[in-house]
């Protein structure tokens, strides 16, 4: 499914760029991320426990950053497989200065496969968007702002 959104962050483009490349920030803001271990430049081994309420799946996979055009653009990919199926999220992030802050535009493609796709279609889109929203809210708070 295709998702997109924009967020306004209360920090300069350079600060935001540093944050979204910072493994600590990624580790603490990615919903459900239990483990993030660097395995190479811009590549990490990831363990995710993601879901909603009782419906939780553990996914083991990778997080990688590519197509870097500092300090305004990159692509971030998170994919994993687990008992409940597999997931792959690919996001394209663009930063634009807006006054003293930054306008962050993201477009993403979220693929969910296996068991959860066959049973959860009613809520997958909404939940996906919500989790991505949580990610950006966390970033925002990290950068010292509020909604």
């Amino acid at each position, binding site marked *: 499914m295709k998702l997109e959104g924009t967020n306004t962050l209360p920090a300069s483009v350079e600060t935001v760029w540093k944050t979204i490349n910072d493994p600590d920030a990624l580790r603490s803001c990615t919903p459900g991320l239990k483990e993030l271990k660097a395995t190479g430049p811009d590549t990490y081994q990831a363990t995710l426990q993601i879901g909603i309420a009782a419906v939780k799946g553990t996914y083991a996979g990778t997080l990688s950053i590519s197509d870097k055009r500092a300090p305004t653009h990159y692509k971030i990919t998170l994919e994993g*497989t687990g008992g409940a*199926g597999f997931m792959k999220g690919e996001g394209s992030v663009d930063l634009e200065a807006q006054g003293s802050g930054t306008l962050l535009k993201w477009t993403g493609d979220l693929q969910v496969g296996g*068991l959860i*796709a*066959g*049973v959860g*279609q*009613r809520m997958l889109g909404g939940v996906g968007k919500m989790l991505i929203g949580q990610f950006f809210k966390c970033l925002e708070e990290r950068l010292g702002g509020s909604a």
Partner: protein
Amino acid sequence: MSTRYTGARITRNEDPALLCGRGLFVDDIHLPRLAHAAVLRSPHAHARIVRIDTRRARAAGGVLAALTHADLGALGGPLPRLIPHPALVHHKTQQALASTAVRYVGEAVALIVAESRYAAEDALDLVDVEYAPLPAAVRLEDAAAPGAPLVHEDAGTNVCARYTQRVGDVERAFAGAPRRFRDRLVMDRGTASPLEARGVVAAWDPRARLLEIWDSTQAPIPIRNGLAAMFGLPQTSVRVVAPDVGGGFGPKVMMFYPEEILVPLAAQRLGRPVKWIEDRREHFVATNQEREQIHDAEIALDETGRILGVRTVFLYDAGAYCPYGLIVPIVAGTTLPGPYRVPNYHCEFTAVFTNKTPVSPYRGAGRPHGVFVMERLLDRAARDLGIDRAEIRRRNLIQPDEFPYDVGLIYQDNAPVQYDSGDYPRCLGRAAEMIGYADWRAQQDTYRAAGRYLGLGVACYVEGTGIGPYEGCRVTVEPSGKVFIATGVGTQGQGHLTAFAQIVADHLGVTPRDVTVRTGDTAAFGWGTGTFASRAAVVAGTAVSLAAEAVREKTRIVAATLLEARPDEIELADGKVFVRGVPARALPLGEVAAAANPLRFAMPREWESPGLEATRYFAPPRGTFSNGVHACIVEIDPETGMLSLHRYVIVHDCGRVLNPLIVEGQIHGGVAQGLGGAFWEKLVYDAEGQPLTTTFMDYLLPTAADLPCFEVGHETTPTPLNPLGVKGAGEAGVIPVGAAIAQAVEDALRPFRVRITEMPLSPARVWELVAEARRSA
């Protein structure tokens, strides 16, 4: 032969046990040391298998075996091709377990056998599979287009077949036609959803050298023969039993599903019986589906609405493999002309591989598509020519004195489509009368004045049934006087245990309750092809009748010896055998049976064989054609798109009716499935080939609360093609439903000028169509 029971509306022999929970389904089979299997299925629609490692699974508690393709040996090759066809260039079948690639979500990748199904499912999580996902060909039109990802790389294309059937000269007909109408008609994927999903139990006895299999299949004999060949066993060393089966509807005819190979193999290797029961989620991905076709169709007529020609070019979604060949699209194309005179006809289809569950026939098997196209074209013509829709049909119907009527096509059994009997105008007239067609416009106006939108739809069809190659039956009278018959077809709810008993009862002068029918056990009867294509009553039923008739004649010969009379003087009635006119000197039928099997002394030569027993076969040279008309009244709420079904009328002609109760049950079930396919049931796959409707939460089956009472009228034009005059009725109910509903919804929404060219509909879709029509107005 008396006809006291044949044709009678009697309750079914099978029901007391079934209704009291004493049926025997495959999950009721319990054997000592039974082990349980679970299947690891691909989560990807298309991927290479890079690596499979079952070490962790094998080490898990309670696990007895973990098989992958590498463990299959000689059984690892592609499974048999069921129905080859010269046009089927790429006749791809799957392997029992995937080796290098998976091509649909649900494809079997590994088999785990454990002490319990719980432990087996725990172990599924421990099988490590590394997949390299590949692009998937999902949407039918995308898959057919050049440059699409290839489902089978070595085929070089996703087109597995192209086939054309022609009658007359359609180019000339269209060129000279005063009126031409075209439409694009889309029908979406659906699944049969039997109450009981699939299941297999296998046991190998090395001392008796007997492989016993219980399989929820519609065709146990071909399974037996196929397994014997694959396992290198004599056919007599393999027994396949289809016990009580909770619905088949087509998808349970296969040779083979992977599990039908894997479970017996596991049983042999482990030396323990193994059971695999398909759960509902598996069923939604691992049991064959159907219904997806896209037709670009055209009709040419003269100004009076007479059909000059029909042309359809369509895409057929075969799924990832096509074990069942081209039956569905061939049936669609040969059903399309229907009860109408179509002097020029062109039907061309392209069968396309997609990365979705494989396709094989589901009740109707393409007939619903042919009817939907034809009826929609006629409705379009009726509207634009200003001719009443029942009238335009009347003007084109084949008349009762035109039989046998050669349509000019070749049917799925490779024989000509030749309608043998029927009275099409009479069925249409009766349906129109039952639904109140004559008064409809006035009634509709009254509803409209009250702000309600009701519509009436009527649709006609002809159905090919009763095809060969053959079926057989053995009838035996035991010394108790009870009669036991065995036949090769299986039973999944069609009432064979009653209908066949009725036929036998009339021949032998007993009651249907005295007759026990055994179906679906290769040890009881080993020749036959199975229950499909609306053929069991026709083909097996005729064999039953021939065998019972032969036993009757034998009874007369034996009784003649015993009663010192001539055979032609002997009568059978009320369980007794006597000389005509001398009922006081009667022998119970059982006594004659006992006498026919002497223990000592010579057997009279005229008896030829011991006992009151005979086996007969019926091999029809071609099928016989049933027909019918459905009419319905629906109400639509244009603000919400919600549909209410007010009335549903079915007039059908299946020739001689063996038991109206059973035929009505068949029709009700078919109509319910047809209505499901019209407004509720749709299998949805996302762009990556992930199935999104794998539970009944999202694949919606209409329930009794959603459907009206059905009104059934029987018409009877017996067929000359078998001694019973019987035609098939198994699929009839489902065939014209989509067409009737489409017409009714259009009629209801006439003020909005909505056109229905797709199935299924939904409230949201109806609302969208109304909104679109409003916008373009």
